[in-house]
């Protein structure tokens, strides 16, 4: 099985501070890869570099066999590399359906159309409604996103990403701050969509990573400690010491 995403020796410094140093990892097609590590480990920085929002100082990135280092964020999205955000990043003045349709239109290649835009809009709205029904949020379709509850906003953030039908979905702490049953619902939706979609998942909650991921990468202080199956990671002494140990204590 070839790797869908290859991260090769990537590094990033902010002044004196090395946020990421020499990280190499790969993500196989179809798998769910967890990315865990304590605060400040560099997880989000790595996400930002993979999705093009930050330029690495060193290393290279390949997606589906092609180098993507020079691509702008939008171009990476066009290849199927889609992310969500740690804090839900929505369009607060727009209705929930409109938020999702914004993504669906772009996926359909009609994001910037004007003439004949009505048909594109209808199709995108249908797609948005389908996702909303799936998430059980159809009754909120017309609500302004700013008026939604936090859990609903998190869900919306995920639905927006899913509307782009990603090949690789990068989720940044999707369950942070959610009640357990909300988190379960959200994870269920992710799982339902992972046919044909690979997932890279940052999370604080180790149990989620162990339950949901095929493999787990552990970052600490900008370095990759290990990348292995959940069981192997759990047994890894360095990980236990740096991360799990602290939790277990």
């Amino acid at each position, binding site marked *: 099985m070839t790797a869908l995403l290859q991260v090769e020796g990537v590094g990033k410094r902010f002044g004196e501070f090395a946020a990421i140093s020499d990280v190499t990892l790969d993500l196989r097609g179809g798998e769910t890869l967890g990315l865990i590590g304590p605060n400040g480990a560099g997880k989000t920085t790595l996400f930002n570099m993979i999705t093009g929002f930050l330029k690495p100082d060193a290393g290279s990135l390949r997606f589906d066999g092609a180098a993507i280092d020079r691509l702008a964020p939008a171009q990476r999205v066009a290849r199927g590399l889609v992310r969500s*955000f740690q804090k839900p990043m929505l*369009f607060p*003045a727009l209705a929930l359906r409109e938020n999702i349709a914004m*993504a669906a239109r772009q*996926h359909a290649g009609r994001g*910037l159309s004007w003439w004949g835009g009505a048909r594109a809009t209808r199709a995108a709205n249908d797609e948005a409604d389908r996702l909303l029904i799936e998430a059980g949020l159809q009754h909120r379709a017309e609500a302004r996103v700013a008026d939604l509850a936090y859990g609903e906003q998190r869900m919306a953030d995920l639905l927006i990403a899913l509307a782009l039908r990603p090949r690789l979905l990068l989720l940044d702490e999707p369950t942070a701050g959610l009640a357990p049953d909300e988190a379960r619902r959200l994870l269920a939706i992710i799982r339902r969509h992972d046919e044909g979609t690979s997932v890279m998942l940052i999370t604080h909650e180790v149990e989620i990573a162990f339950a949901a991921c095929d493999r787990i990468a552990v970052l600490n202080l900008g370095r990759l400690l290990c990348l292995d199956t959940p069981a192997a990671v759990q047994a890894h002494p360095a990980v236990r010491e740096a991360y799990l140990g602290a939790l277990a204590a």
Partner: protein
Amino acid sequence: MSLSRLALPMAGLAAMAAVAALSGDFQLRFLAEILLIGTAVLSLDLLIGFGGLISLGHAALFGSAAYAAAIAAQHLGASLPVMLGIGIAMGTAVAALMGLVILRAGSLFLLILALLFGQIVWEICFHWREVTGGADGLRGLPPLSLGPWALGDARSLFVLAGLLALGSLGVARSFVASPLGRALIGTREQPIRMQALGYTLFSVRFRALLVAGAMAGAAGSLYPFVNLYVGPQSVHWTLSATMIIMLVIGGVGSLWGAFLGTAVYLALQTYVGAWTDRWQLCVGLLFVLTVLVMPQGLASGFLRLTRKGRTP
């Protein structure tokens, strides 16, 4: 639905017909001016109200189209479709150039870059005396015509300006409802997320600027024929600033508020100025009060009275 959608333009047309029948020469020309400048302000609303792009160089689009039309009219005669075509082309072309310069940076950088760009256009209009007439501008233009019909009188100008304003309002509404318009709102609301959705900010904003440029250009192309004159003031940044004031008084993001704001501003300037030298104080107070008390502008004030305001 379709009935109410038709109701507004019909009401607009009816109001226009009534005004055209009843008003005198001065009033009609004044209204034509309001409608033309209002159309330019409307195009600015697309940028500010929906894209969050505060351009302090919008007069450059309006004014350069006005110059282009006036210069062409001196050589080719002032045939309406030719003038409109030249104005739209010029407005779009200058907008394209402007976009390449100003759209690389955000907020205040954009404001200053637009100001500098606009002032460069002004300098060109001001210095290229052989073509633009320099500080004195161009006068003695032929009156507007369409085939055998002369359209130079106040009534025709008013009707033309009214049709252009209504048309532009329709275009603006369709733009805002279209995927492109929604994307523009997206870039204002959450530029980073837009990139994460695969939108390139530049291409969204650039297209919006082209649309605004074409609309401002169309309005600009008719403007010289209201007074058979065009001068460098129509390109100057102070007109850009005035357009922003008009827009805010009328209501940012409300589209038709652009006309309301323009009318209120120009009426204040024209009628209060006759009574007191302090008309600028009145404009300033009204403007600040609007920002403080009614940040959505007069348009939303009216709307709130009649029905619930639609979110843009």
